[in-house]
């Protein structure tokens, strides 16, 4: 079932920055967000638990890949909630 994505200002600011600096990367991130919205477990996202982080109410945090087969792939951090059918996008960040 499709989800609604709720962006924290941190993630939103990364989107805004990419609009100005890297349109190709922006498209990849947008595609990732589109896939997340449709199906967070889509195989190309390689979504997995990120055990060393928890959400503000102890939510399990997940990491999804923006790019496949790229060593320094960008990542999206998110968790389920708040509420049913919502995913919170915590941050969108490059892997060094």
């Amino acid at each position, binding site marked *: 079932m*499709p989800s609604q994505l709720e962006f*924290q200002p941190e993630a939103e600011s990364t989107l805004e920055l990419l609009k100005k600096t890297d349109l190709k990367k922006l498209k990849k991130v947008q595609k990732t967000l*589109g896939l997340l*919205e449709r199906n967070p477990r889509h195989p190309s996202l390689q979504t997995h638990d990120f055990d060393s982080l928890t959400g503000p109410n102890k939510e399990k945090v997940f990491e999804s890949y923006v790019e496949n087969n790229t060593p320094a792939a960008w990542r999206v951090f998110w968790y389920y909630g708040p509420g049913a059918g919502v995913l919170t996008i*915590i*941050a969108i*960040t490059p892997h060094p």
Partner: protein
Amino acid sequence: MNIHFQDFRPVKEDTHADSRGRLTLGQIAKDKKYRVLVNDAGQVLLDPVVSIPERELWLWNNPEALASVQRGLQQAAEGKGRYLGSFAQYADLEIED
């Protein structure tokens, strides 16, 4: 390691380790993992530690990325998130690497 002795408070006034050195600490230590230190006076300090899976170390070793995630989590705790519209139309984008 910083040890803040002034912040210690009694949890149990009199507890006795069994013959194998086991103590029951109760809720204060439930499901936690510790490094155990002892000094010359025989005082034992339990220092909480968190295990980080190897595949997640990249984030903890990268101050910028970690700060970004921590800011996002803090903003989430403060309820600052907002809906930016649907991204579903981007899911089928063909993107060349």
